[in-house]
């Protein structure tokens, strides 16, 4: 099975070939239980089946989702994930707020450029010299925290009359960020399926030596995957800045692991080459739905995070088993 095949027809092929083995049955069983749980919970949880609540779910999925769809490209290209997603989100939010005095458009442009560049540099390190992405991104995160601590102590608030209200505006009942999330996801998903760049990324993630041998520009592709992720992180940073009244490094919060969890729950392979941006959207929505449900029944924050971790672990193990069976029947 080639990279392109598995990329474009991955889920369909998996379904057909793997139908008979126990691991695949376990995956379907888990998906069925999860779906049943959500449907059951939907009817049992007071206040779940309301328009307002669906809007709340989409809203809470949006920020994490924007970060996650971009980072999906890193994972699909075989470079695992970035551990500094949250930090760069905070850094870009701070930068945007700081640059607002020179106009919204200029601030947004500079921020998006900065986010893209910060990640592209890390991607270049990973792609050119084969540096480990986990270590590079941990290091880059520490450097960014240091630089921000040095340049901007404390909170940053927008200047009066900054004109960033539109970032937090609601259009047809949904916040602006939801449209950005779905739009970015659509563009990236189409890009991964139908452009040469996307297919090459899939091949790189599926089999790096083969990608090398085929003469693909491995370093450039890795850099580009990181750059796209950085762009998305910066988009999230701008939107978060528009939402919040003041920003600081604490904005980073749990975005890093929430975004990675969304990708993993979506079912993309952590080693790359298999999965899709669309899956990440589903993963982000699943996590947001379950978190929302737990919130409505009054579960603590800790409980919500605990369940999230459990789901990530179970999904990763089950999907791995299903894929392994498919590879060696």
């Amino acid at each position, binding site marked *: 099975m080639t990279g392109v095949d598995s990329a474009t027809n991955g889920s369909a092929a998996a379904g057909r070939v793997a139908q008979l083995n126990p691991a695949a049955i376990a995956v379907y069983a888990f998906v069925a239980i999860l779906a049943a749980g959500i449907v059951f919970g939907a009817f049992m949880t007071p206040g779940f089946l309301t328009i307002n609540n669906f809007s709340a779910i989409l809203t809470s999925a949006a920020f994490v989702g924007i970060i996650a769809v971009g980072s999906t490209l890193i994972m699909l290209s075989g470079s695992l994930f970035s551990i500094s997603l949250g930090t760069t989100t905070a850094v870009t939010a701070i930068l945007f707020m700081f640059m607002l005095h020179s106009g919204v458009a200029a601030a947004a442009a500079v921020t998006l450029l900065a986010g893209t560049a910060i990640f592209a540099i890390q991607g270049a390190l990973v792609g050119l010299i084969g540096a480990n992405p986990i270590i590079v991104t941990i290091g880059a995160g520490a450097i*960014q925290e240091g630089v921000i601590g040095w340049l901007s102590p404390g909170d940053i608030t927008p200047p009066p009359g900054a004109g960033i209200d539109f970032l937090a505006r609601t259009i047809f009942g949904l916040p602006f960020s939801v449209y950005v999330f779905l739009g970015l996801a659509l563009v990236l998903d189409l890009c991964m399926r139908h452009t040469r760049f996307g297919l090459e990324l899939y091949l790189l993630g599926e089999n790096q030596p083969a990608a090398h041998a085929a003469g693909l520009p491995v370093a450039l592709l890795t850099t580009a995957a990181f750059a796209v992720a950085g762009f998305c992180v910066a988009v999230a940073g701008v939107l978060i800045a528009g939402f919040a009244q003041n920003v600081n490094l604490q904005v980073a919060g749990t975005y890093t692991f929430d975004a990675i969890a969304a990708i993993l729950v979506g079912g993309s392979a952590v080693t790359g080459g298999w999965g899709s941006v669309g899956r990440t959207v589903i993963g982000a929505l699943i996590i947001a739905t379950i978190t929302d449900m737990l919130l409505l029944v009054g579960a603590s924050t800790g409980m919500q995070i605990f369940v999230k971790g459990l789901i990530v672990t179970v999904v990763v193990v089950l999907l791995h088993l299903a894929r392994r069976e498919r590879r060696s029947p």
Partner: protein
Amino acid sequence: MSARDDTSARRTPASRRVRTSMPYVLLAIMFAALFIFPLFAGRRASAFNVYDALQLWSAYGLVALGVGLTMIVGEFDFGVLGVFALCPMIAVKLGEINLFLGLGAALGLAAVVGFLEGAIVAKLRVHSMPVTLGFYIALLGANLAIGNSQSVSFSNLNVGFALDARLAIFSGRSIIALIVFALVFVVMRFTRVGRDIRAVGGDRRASRMVGVAVDRVLIGVFITSAVCSALGGVLLAYSFATALSNPGLYPLQFAVTAAILGGVSLVGGVGGAVGIAAGALSLSLLQELFSLLAAPTYLSSLITGVLLVIATFVAAPNLSAWWRSLRSPRPGAVAVASAVPEPASK
């Protein structure tokens, strides 16, 4: 992250010597820096500062030992962050009833977590990063749920006093950590287990072929990793008489940096307890230097990050190939030819 190429075989002896001596050179530099730099600021480092650095070392150094061991065996353990958060909470909560009950429950829980992680990674051959990441998130959630999203204080202050009592440059805490490091060193150096650990990290498939009990080694390493990190966290919590609701990412940042500076490679098969101890101590001395100079905290993140990126360069598998490709007339071809293909076993 299963079978991997052996980069050490391709490296020239000179660069290998540099790499193996790097942790100790760095440690010497940090020691010198701690005693020289403050002089310019009109301050003077004393034995107390070394004691203080060792206090830090005893908490985060043990995490570094855990993460480092999993890196040597060719895996990675995000779960250490989880046990570092949850186990101190258990130790403090149950420690109110009985100190040894708390300690035993905390370390027992860590062993169970390590066993589960190791079993999943070894038996089901799942990539360790996403699995341990899931464990980390779940354990952190459990910690927040138990502690009600708040730090919990420990009423038995005497334990902390006893652990922190100063003996020259050591304390009870740093002596316990030292003993753990020594135990791991002895096992790694003088028993078959140590050889097996490095073999599994170097070439897992070959290790299986020649009869190394790969699964048992992996499970053992994950248990050790979790127990070491938990011990570091519990000692810190008893010492501060507080279990934190969320210790954040700092322990992992410290641990990975210390392990890498200590000569551990993420490729697997390289490194040992002494190197990790040296790497962790270098970082601890650096922190102590900063606090002695009353330097702002951002400086220490900045330097940690820069050190990590530099270490990445040193540890990068394709660095020499890339360098050669820059100087060769046909860049692409050389880079391709010299990059040893990693078997696509996922």
